[in-house]
């Protein structure tokens, strides 16, 4: 791994006074399609703390990506945030914080745009197609920088080169003038990270950034992200379906199922002491490289329902081994404390 010196553009954000940097409360994002309303996110609650990583884990269609896009208000049509609050504390000057509800800001307005890509950046799953194929890498990078700073073309170019070398891309000066198809998937993701971090964001949202990559490249990218986080002190929201990745990068974990957060706890607590039946089942059903070969895995019955055919009550009840007839299929459980720093939404626990 290249160990370039810390670039000047990297500034440390480490301030932790206990209050979360970003608080998502009761987020509802729905998609209004011709066939009906899809409740992609249906009451999500989570917090992001400075310098920490929140792992948002769930299977396909659970709404984890939509939740992330809702934070930046870039949900694709016909999706719309219909309810909730996203409280973000920005730092106006040293030690002075302003708390704003991002959902109250105009999605296309200057204030939101300054946050989007400036204070909160995002990287995506498909590194190749996330770059425009007909603009050079440098063009797209400097554009991001100049959107959020007052840099001249030359300064922006230099910053871009610094960042490319900082994320471990060889020959950054040359790469700058090349089109994205000349880069491999791993290099594209590095360039993407460089672009996201070049504006010194306080939060990085990583939406399955390694899913499309090979396993050795994935390991490199995960290492890179952890190194950069340690350097800059930024917070991260890491979205993935891979519990192995979660174990490696996350400090806190929120488990999503069909648009809801079903469990939330620090990473070790989730793996040591899962409470929600879904989390439990998920943890036992994943194949492990250190397991005894040819052993049967305990599996979850059924499959994830189509988001339009959402079951009533607790969305997990048709597949749940601990299903309580008359309760789980009728009432909706709420997220409640089931231990210290540990919340779950399941009728097995009082208060839910």
């Amino acid at each position, binding site marked *: 791994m290249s160990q370039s010196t810390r670039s000047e553009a990297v500034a440390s954000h480490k301030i932790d006074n206990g209050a979360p940097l970003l608080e998502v409360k009761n987020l509802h994002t729905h998609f209004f399609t011709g066939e009906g309303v899809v409740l992609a996110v249906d009451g999500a609650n989570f917090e992001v703390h400075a310098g920490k990583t929140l792992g948002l884990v769930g299977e396909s269609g659970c709404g984890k990506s939509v939740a992330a*896009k809702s934070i*930046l208000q*870039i949900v*694709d049509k016909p999706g719309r945030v219909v309810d909730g609050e996203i409280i973000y504390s920005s730092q106006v000057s040293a030690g002075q914080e302003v708390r704003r509800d991002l959902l109250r800001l105009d999605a*296309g307005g200057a204030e939101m*745009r*300054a*946050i*989007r*890509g*400036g204070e909160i*950046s*995002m990287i*995506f*799953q*498909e590194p190749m*197609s*996330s*770059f*425009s*194929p*007909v*603009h050079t890498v440098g063009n797209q990078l400097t*554009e*991001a920088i100049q*959107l*959020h700073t007052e840099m001249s073309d030359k300064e922006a170019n230099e910053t871009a080169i610094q960042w490319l070398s900082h994320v471990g891309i060889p020959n950054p000066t040359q790469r700058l003038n090349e*089109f994205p*198809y000349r880069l491999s998937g791993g290099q594209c993701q590095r360039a*993407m990270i460089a*672009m996201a971090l070049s504006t010194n964001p306080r939060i990085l949202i990583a939406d399955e950034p390694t899913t499309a990559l090979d396993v050795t490249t994935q390991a490199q990218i995960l290492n890179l992200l952890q190194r950069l986080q340690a350097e800059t002190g930024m917070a991260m929201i890491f979205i993935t379906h891979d519990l192995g990745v979660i174990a490696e990068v996350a400090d806190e974990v929120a488990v999503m199922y069909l648009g809801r957060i079903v469990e939330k706890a620090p990473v070790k607590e989730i793996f040591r002491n899962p409470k929600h039946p879904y989390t439990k089942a998920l943890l036992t059903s994943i194949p492990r490289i250190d397991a005894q070969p040819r052993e049967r895995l305990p599996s979850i019955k059924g499959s994830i329902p189509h988001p339009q055919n959402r079951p009533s009550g607790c969305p997990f009840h048709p597949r749940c081994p601990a299903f309580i007839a008359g309760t789980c299929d009728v009432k909706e459980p709420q997220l409640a404390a089931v231990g210290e720093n540990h919340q779950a939404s399941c009728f097995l626990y009082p208060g839910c």
Partner: protein
Amino acid sequence: MLGYLIRRITYGIVTIFAVSVLSFLIIQLPPGDYVTSYIAALEAQGDDVSAEEAETLRAYFGLGQPPYVQYGKWMYQIAQGNLGLSFQYRVPVTEVIGERMLLTIILALGSVVFVWITAIPIGIFSAVRQYSIQDYIATTLGFIGLAVPDFLLALVMMYLAWDWWGFSIGGLFSQEYAAAPWSLGRVVDLLQHMIIPIIVLGTAGTASLIRITRANLLDELRKPYVVTARAKGMTEWQLILKYPVRLALNPVISLTAYIFPFLVSGSIIVSVVLSLPTLGPVLLRSLLSQDMFLAGAIILLIGVMTVVGTLLSDILLGLVDPRVRLE
């Protein structure tokens, strides 16, 4: 890029060859050879042609020899700039075509420009504001524009012009400029007269280009790089114009390559209806009176024009899209 260019030029040459063979075929198709019809035409006008003269002519055009020799001679003559004689006008074909060729090109180019400047903004707006009232209006108009054949549109325009204002919109020049030498006044006069032909000619192209721009842009708008750009904090129009529009325009550019032949072809029928002094009416008249050298030459020339136009837009595409050059 060089490989791409060579390939494109090779296609162009092969296409011109194919068109020349077809044009030659058309010259050959009517019964009797060219000299017989030529002599018949001359005699009908009171001229007397001796047997020797006829033989000289036959030898000159290689008649009686195998078709490929005749084709070769014809092509050789054309390469010399000699397109043969028009027996209807009794002057060399080049003289008949002359200015009409220029006007045809101006008309086709004008239509391309018209198509571009109307279709692209409408298409972009239509895609960005998908399912808005304006989008529906643009889409419906596009459909109708596509459905009305241009010569019918020309007829309707003529009728309306007659019915509402009582004048004929035919021709490309006012009477005082029709036979005058080129001057600024003549150019202005030409431009004024070209507006309606261009609209008539460009409508179908505009309609299809609106649809294609819209569809391409809608495709591009769903691509991940748009989300990336949005997440950077760009304003919506800023990002749409820089990224997806830029990509959506590539197929639009390459499409111009295919619209161009249609515009050139379409201008023929429209010219007949609006009696424009372009190649169209001459071609029709020559075909109807079996003035085949003139007809063959015009078809060949239009073919060459189309190929050159196609080539130009292909090169433009290659310049604009790095991925094309790569291939």
